[in-house]
């Protein structure tokens, strides 16, 4: 079986469906007239497994297109940067979290080079966002995170 779009997608559907059925099977199924919490999930997940199998079956008859190469750097770094933002927003505060997020995401671009303009730009952007979202819109996000707060303030 050669890897193609359909093979990967079919596998995804089948695996997700099987996991979902095996989880849902433990919920009370009930009857049609009195559906339990498991009724709908079991049916939908089984349909998903079936669909996945059909997609896999179909893939055998279609000439597979070659999958283009993946650029791993943005694919890993950008979701990673979002996770870092999540870790930092409450512990370090919004401005620092934005600074980390912009720097990490921008670094994935092929046009990125670290210079004073990039640093100044991201500093200004972090400051601007903090003012707009916290001061003007009043969103309850800490400016200074819990790790950096001096006790007594």
């Amino acid at each position, binding site marked *: 079986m050669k890897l193609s*779009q*359909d093979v*990967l*997608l079919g596998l*995804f*559907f089948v695996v*997700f*469906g099987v996991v*979902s059925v095996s*989880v*849902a099977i433990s*919920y*009370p199924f009930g009857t*049609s*007239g*009195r*559906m339990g*919490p498991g*009724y*709908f*999930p079991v049916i*939908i*997940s089984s*349909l*998903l497994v079936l*669909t*996945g199998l059909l*997609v896999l079956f179909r893939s055998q008859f279609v000439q597979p297109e070659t999958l*283009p190469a*993946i*650029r791993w750097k*943005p*694919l890993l770094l*950008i*979701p*990673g*940067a*979002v996770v870092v*933002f*999540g*870790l930092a*927003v*409450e512990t370090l505060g919004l401005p620092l979290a934005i600074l980390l*997020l*912009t720097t990490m*995401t*921008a670094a994935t*671009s*092929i*046009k*990125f080079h670290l210079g004073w303009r990039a640093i100044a730009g*991201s500093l200004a*952007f972090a400051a601007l*966002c903090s003012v707009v*979202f916290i001061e003007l*819109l*009043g*969103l*309850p*996000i800490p400016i200074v995170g819990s790790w950096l707060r001096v006790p007594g303030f």
Partner: protein
Amino acid sequence: MDIFNGLLLGFSTATTLSNFAYCFAGVLLGTAVGVLPGLGPIATISMLLPFTFGLPVDTALIMLAGIFYGSQYGGSTTAILMNLPGEASSVVTTLDGHQMAKQGKAGRALAAAAIGSFFAGTVGTLFIVIAAPLLASLALTFGPAEYFSLIMLGLITSMVLTSGSLLTAFGMALFGIILGMIGTDINTGAARYTFGSPYLLDGLDFVVVATGIFGLGDVLMNLENERLRVTGVAPVSSLFPTAEDWRRMSAPILRGTGIGVLLGVLPGAGVLLASFSAYALEKKISKHPEQFGKGAIEGVAAPEAANNAAAQTCFIPMLTLGLPGTATMALMIGALVVQGVQPGPEILSQQPALFWGLVVSMWLGNLMLLFLNLPLVGMWAKLISVPYHFLFPTICVFMAIGVYSINNSVFDVYMMALFGVLGYFFKRMGAEPAPLILAMILGPMAEEYLRRTLLISHGDASVFFTSPLSLGTLVVAALLLLSIVSPRFRKVREEGLQEVD
């Protein structure tokens, strides 16, 4: 409350200083973000969502609606000037719009789009005024069987009108339904698919999933071919349509509006279907069909009018039935729920100021767009040409802040990262995520209505076929499914949707 009093109430709600100002801000921000290449309405709305938190409900809804049409308008500007459709329904605009731009008639194409959209928006709003109260009172008589059938129709329409194979779209919809079931089952209180995590008890936040798949997923997809991104923006010259233009575009605008108003109400992909049908109709009845695709102004005016009319009337099922017709409307419902409003037939009687204020501000928003867009077109053109490597870090920051501030939850931020990767995966596999998004909202509703129907009928499924309305809806859904098997329709669908992705 009759229509006249309703409109009066609407005007008094929509013209308070703050509501008017936020409507303006919404339209302006929506256009500014919507013109950015590669950002469709879903990504735009989810990015700008935090601006509406902390506002009163009616103001927030008015601003959200403003963002929505702003992003639609912005999308057509990008489609015409750059040949980059921000969303599926502006694909047809690129066909003739960008050709006109290449011939130095960009200004006239933009004006045709703006005028067509404004006219269609006005008619669409009037249609909401008349049809929504009727439908809402009708909807109060709907039982769970009717609702279930309508939901099925919506899901099937969205699958049929998605690019790629029907089977893939079906799988995506099923996946979406499962995502929608995560959390506490409202009927039995059982926790489903939560894996013991307290964060999942309330379910996955819909806005988080949509932002991840459409917003972050698109960023990842765009960075894939960063080198290939074109940055040519056509210059804008005279904005005034000639007398010849007026003559050629008035009838197409009228026809496009008619098509859009009617198709927008359909559950499924009304907006998309409207712009494609309007274009196809104009090409068919034109005396010079050979000019289409080479810069015919009819080919810009008609689909833009249809697009905007449908964008207005697709609010009807959302507001009166609580059923979103498109993925964008599903996101609007998600945003309303964040505000604590559950759309449905009761919204008209219980929150008349909200409903009528929204309707009037829709029209005001369209008027603002007409006067805002044409003079500011130079500024939009500048925004379009901002290089992507400056844009996407900014986009990521806005999305991260937006998602975090929905529930002040870091968990949501991690979920967005996860769904961003999933969105990228789906796009790479040629699977369009629109059915997933719609199914995530409609799935739990379908379960609830199915459960209620069968509880009343003691497990007898024949009720779906004995109620005339439910039967009619299911027949339409079945016909749609059958039509895709017919080779002729298949060809049309493939031609129409092939460029959409």
